[in-house]
Each structure stands twice: as C-alpha cells, then as structure tokens.
C-alpha cells in the first residue's frame, strides 16, 4: 500500500460517481424519446493487484472500476411488442380499406342504389296505371329516366371501387419504398454497431435507433429479426431476407394490370426480392396487398353479381320469354375491362315511343306493372342489393372489432416492454440523489486523506515548532 493509494481510490470513486450521474442525465434527457432504452452504469470493485512476492496482506481493494454502460432491455418483450404492433397496423389498414368500401356504396338510406331501385319500381307502377296517350308518354319518359338512374348509380359505385383499387396500388408503392429505405438504414446501423463493438465504443444509442427501425419494418411487413455475430441482425420478411448483416436487399412490387384482370384471376400484385417471391406475414403492407389481390376484387365481384341479378330480374319482368327487347343491357365496350356494374345501361334503342310496356297487341300495361311489382317478388332486385350491402357492412364491423382488439393488445405489449426498458423519472431522481451523495462522500474521503497527508508531510519531523 503506497502513501498515495488513498488518493487514487478517491479519484476512482469520484470518476465513477460522476459517470453515473452523466448516465442518469442521459436517461432523463431521453425520457420522452420514443423507443429509448434506459442505461445503467455497471461498476465493480477493483481487486487489489499483486501476487506472489508482491502480495500484500491486510490491504483493501483499490476502489471502484467501471465495467461498462449496460442497456436495460429484454429481447423477448421487444420481439413481442414488435409483433403486436405489426398485427395492430395490419388490422388498422384492413379496416381503413373496408370503411372506404362501405362508403363507396353510398347507402345511407336516403340515396344510393336501393333508393333508386325503389323509385324505379314506383315509376313503372305509375306507368302501369296510365291510360291516356299523354299520361302514357309521360309515364314512359319517367320510367326510362328512373331506370337510367339505376344504371348510372351502379356505374358510379363501380367507378369508386376501381379508383380505390388504383389508390391502394399507389399505397403499396409507398410502403415498398419505405421498406427499402428502412432496410438500408438497418444495414448501415448494423455496420456501425459492428465497428463500435470491435473498438469498444458504447453502441447503446445505435442499438436504440436500430430497434426503432426494426419496429417500423415490423409495422410494415411483420418482419422477423434473427441475431448474428458482432451484435448485427438479419431481418426476414416471410422467408426472404431483406437485411443480412451489413447488406440490404431491395423489395420490388409488381402490380396487377387492372382490377378486371385481378377479378378474372389473370393477374395480381406480387412482391419480390431478387427473383424470390415475398409474402409478408403481417403489417400494413400485407393488409394492403391482401386488399388489392383479394378484398377489393371480391367485393367488386359481389357488386357485379348483384347488378347482373338486378338486370336479369327486371328483364324477366319486362321481356318475358326473352324474345323482345331487354330493358337493361350491357355494353361490350368496357373502359377498364370492368364487370357488369360498369357495363350496365338502359338499352339505347329504347325510347318512350318504342317502349313495349304491354302484352303485345293490347294496352294492358302488364309488363310495366310486372316491373313495378318486382319489389315484392322473391328474386327482387332490392333484396339482392340489400344482401350485398349488409354483407359488406357486417365485414366492416368485424374488421373494426378486430382492429380495436389488436390496438389494445399492442398497447399492453408496449407497456410490458417499457416496464423493463422505459425511463421512470422518480427512479432516476433517486439514483441521482444516491450518486450525488456518493460523490460528496468520496470528495470528503479525499479531503480527509489530504489532511492526513498534510499532517504527514508538513507536520512530521518538525520538533519544537
């Protein structure tokens, strides 16, 4: 034990206490930083050196030694939080798609296709009651106008659905670009973390940033994280790697050609990395991909079928036996290769003069009456359309409930993760007080030793003074 080893001991204590206060300061500074993981100073006792002939007896240790700054995190809760956030994002995106689909139907009870159908039946019934030439002409004009309204409304619904489909395609592009830029960031951070590890620099901040990027990737694609050497990670979307160590791969989206082709099963939107197909397991990209390939085409097919049923029922009443002129026909010229809902129209050859509203050879207006009475028939157009609308409404409600539940679950997971790695100000305050006391006490030790040495140096050997 050297004379000045006490001073060395104190200086180490002071350094440790000061470093600890800095770490606490860092935690407090980042209390509101999203995804920040609190840090803790790790210190251990300094072992008294010397073996063999240099072993000292009855000498205390040499103070405190800083072994590092630890990042308090739990990989399991982090992974769980990532997954739950991904699920919540997926269901939220799906609900947004369904809500928009429901809005596209335009059914609020006082307008929309069901209202137009009721109006059409009314107009044809009134035509059925008309007798004088003037009334008949007016009745026919009115009935044709209402039928045209029905066709126009169906076309409008279809146009909205098609535009929603295109918009979703654009959104896939945005998400894909997002995935690519985030993957690059992760790869860059991987490289930085590897460097920091080899040079001994604290990589805690880099790890936090990478965790945020990984969380974002999970939110988009439900990505899976696998650790590798040097503190780096690999990120997998489905079974394809989008980040492997320091290298990132580009995700490409190939779009379906049109909604009509997707409905016919002739094309679809796919994601690829290189030549390998990628299927995200969760996240908003998966929800949007599903919407573009399945949800929206299925709803569009349902609407098409409903429109075809409506046209068939009306034509069966207006043109029994199918020998004459149908009321509703379908153009073959389709702008977007659309289905029945886009192609339906009142046959252009029909005018008030050429309308065949009675059994041929009479003026009994039986056919007009038949169209008017369709709403009470078992295959009535209103019933067919109503079931389509309610089906979509029910699916939207189910999706909303799922999204609500998923968001609750994700909140709980994030709280669990934060309970391990989040900053609690009270705790930091307490630590700060402890370290401050430690600093003061170490300073007092230094002063004491200093005074003792002072006595030794300046007072020893002075006799008679």
């Amino acid at each position, binding site marked *: 034990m050297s004379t000045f080893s006490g001073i060395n001991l104190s200086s180490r204590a002071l350094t440790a206490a000061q470093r600890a206060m800095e770490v606490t300061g860092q935690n407090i500074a980042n209390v509101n930083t999203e995804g920040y993981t609190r840090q803790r100073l790790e210190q251990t006792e300094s072992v008294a050196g010397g073996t063999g002939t240099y072993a000292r007896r009855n000498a205390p240790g040499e103070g405190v030694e800083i072994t590092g700054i630890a990042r308090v995190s739990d990989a399991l809760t982090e992974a769980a939080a990532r997954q739950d956030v991904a699920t919540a994002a997926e269901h939220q995106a799906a609900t947004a798609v369904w809500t928009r689909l429901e809005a596209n139907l335009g059914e609020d*009870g006082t307008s929309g296709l069901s209202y137009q159908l009721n109006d059409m039946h*009314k107009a044809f019934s009134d035509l059925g009651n008309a*007798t004088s030439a003037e009334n008949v002409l007016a009745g026919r004009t009115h009935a044709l106008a209402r039928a045209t309204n029905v066709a126009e409304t169906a076309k409008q619904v279809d146009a909205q659905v098609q535009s929603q489909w295109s918009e979703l395609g654009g959104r896939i592009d945005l998400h894909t670009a997002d995935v690519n830029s985030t993957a690059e960031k992760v790869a860059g951070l991987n490289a930085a973390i590897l460097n920091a590890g080899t040079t001994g620099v604290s990589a805690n901040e880099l790890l936090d940033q990478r965790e945020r990027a990984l969380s974002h990737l999970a939110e988009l694609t439900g990505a899976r994280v696998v650790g590798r050497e040097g503190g780096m990670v690999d990120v997998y979307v489905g079974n394809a790697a989008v980040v492997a160590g320091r290298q990132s791969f580009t995700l490409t989206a190939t779009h379906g050609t049109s909604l009509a082709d997707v409905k016919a099963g002739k094309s679809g939107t796919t994601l690829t990395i290189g030549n390998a197909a990628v299927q995200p397991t969760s996240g908003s990209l998966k929800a949007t991909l599903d919407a573009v390939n399945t949800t929206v085409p299925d709803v569009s097919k349902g609407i098409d079928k409903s429109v075809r049923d409506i046209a068939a029922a009306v034509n069966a009443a207006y043109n029994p036996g199918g020998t004459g002129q149908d009321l509703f026909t379908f153009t073959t010229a389709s702008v977007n290769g659309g289905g029945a809902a886009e192609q339906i129209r009142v046959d252009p050859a029909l005018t008030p003069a050429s309308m065949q509203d009675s059994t041929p050879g009479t003026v009994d207006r039986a056919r007009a009456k038949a169209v008017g009475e369709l*709403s009470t028939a078992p295959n009535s157009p209103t019933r067919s359309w109503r079931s389509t609308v309610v089906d979509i409404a029910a699916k939207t*409600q189910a999706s909303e409930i799922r999204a609500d539940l998923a968001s609750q679950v994700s909140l709980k997971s994030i709280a669990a993760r934060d309970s391990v790695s989040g900053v609690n100000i009270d705790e930091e305050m307490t630590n700060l007080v402890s370290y401050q006391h430690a600093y003061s006490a170490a300073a007092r030790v230094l002063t004491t030793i200093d005074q003792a040495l002072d006595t030794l140096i300046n007072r020893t050997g002075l006799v008679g003074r």
Partner: protein
Amino acid sequence: MIGRIASRTTAMNSLANLQASQVRSDRIQQQMTSGKAYVKLSDDPVAANDALRFRSEIAVNEQYGRNISDGQRWLSVQEGSLGSVTNSLHAARDALVQANNAAVSNPAARGALAAQLRSIRDDLLAQANTQHEGHPVFGGTTTAGTAVAATFSGTTGTYTITGDEGAVTRRVAPGHDVRVNATATEVFGGAGGAPTVFQQLDALADAVESGDTTAVGAGLATIDAARDRVLSVRGALGARVNQLEALEQANAVRGDALTGSLDEVEGVDIAKAMIEFRLQDTAYQAALATTAKVIQPTLLDFLR
C-alpha cells in the same frame, strides 16, 4: 404483472383512454344531432338490413295506396255514367208504356215517342263512350278511341263494339288485383251476337212509329232486361268501391305501422341518448381530473 411503470407508459395509457372516451362522446353527439341510431351501416349491420327492408316496404305500400286511389277514380266515373244510363232506361220504359196505350193512334204522337226513344238511344251511346283520362272507360283495354262505334243510315244505325273484354286491374295488396272496369258488352249487351240495347231501342222506335203494338208490348220486357243488366253491373261496381274503401283504410294503417317500425330501428331515443351523454360527460371529466393529478408530480417536486 408489471412491477415497474415507465413515465411514458402512464402518459400513453392516459392518452389512449382519453381518446377512447372522446370517441364515445363524439358518437353520442352524432346520434343526437342526426337523430339516427347509427352513423354508418357497419355500426349496426342488422339494424341497417331492417331499415333498408322497411324503406322498400314503405315504398311498395305507398304504391298500393296510389293504385287504390286510381281504381277509385275509375269506379266513380263508371258509377256516374251508369247512373245516367239507368235514368235514361227508365225514361225509355215510360215512353214505351205510353206508346203501349192502345188509345194512342195519332201518328204525330207516335212519331214524337219514337223520336224520344231515338234520342234516349243517342244518350246511351254517348254514355257508352265516356272517356276517363283519354281512354273509353267501357272499352276494356282497346287501343281504339271508342267503346261502341255507330254509323247511321237514316234513323237506323249499325253498332260495332270496338272495345274489348280486357280487364283493367289495379294491384292493391300483395298478389291481390281488383278489377276496376266494366266492359260495353257487360253493360249494353251484344255479347256473342246478341242485340245491343241500341239495336233494341232502334227496333222499338220503329215499332212505335209503325204502330206495331205487339212489338211494343214485348219491348217492355226487353227494356226491363236491359235495365236489370245495368243494375247488376252497378251492384258489382259498388261492391268493389266498398272493397277499395276498406283496403284504403288498411293501407293507411299499414303505412303508419311501417313508418313506426322504421323509426324504431333507425331513429335514436333522444331521452336515452341524453342520459348516456351525461354519463359519458361525467366519466370524461373524471378521467381528465385523474390524469392531471397522476401525470404531474415527480420526485422533483419534493427534492430540495
């Protein structure tokens, strides 16, 4: 069990709960201002289905109401016409009774009676071709403009029934059609080649003029038969008028019931909504107060 709470967790949870509370308040407020129990269909798909169905049924019921009114108009026109026909036939009978009096052998008097009969025949012809909304009301479903066409050579006419036997019906209840017309042959005869009342009147006028008392005597029975025919048609039409009246009542009652059901399904109970709103408001304020208390103090406030 979470043993440790990070500061951010408290803030995040409070925020999430306040947001959820606000969403609920907003929903109730939308209900009260719009008067509808659901804002979009997915809020309550079952109620939405019912509402759409009720709307369609209300439209159908309204159409039945309009059909009933239209039918009643048809029947009232025919009723008026047939009333006038009955009066004319009574006048014809009186003239015949007069002519049957054997003491009337004055050719001038006989000529006057014959002229009267012929003018009654013209009245009946006019009634037969009564128009309703531009269509001969006794013409069935014909496209011709008249129910009975007449050409005269001198004082005798040839009568062709240009109307057909088509029934004009109105759908007044599900699957229930009511016939609202009577055809010319039903009222004025002429079915299957039998003589029409106009031909009979022509024959009788000639008989009166020529003083054929046997024919005139037999004519009374003919006129009686014609009058009975008209009366039976009037009876049938009258029954249908009653039927339509009853249906009109039923239709109005059903319309009210359907509107009530629609309101029940779609409309919001204002009293209930107001109570919910008060409860929700109280809960929200309590949440705000608690959040303020919990979020603020840290150890910082108590350390020197």
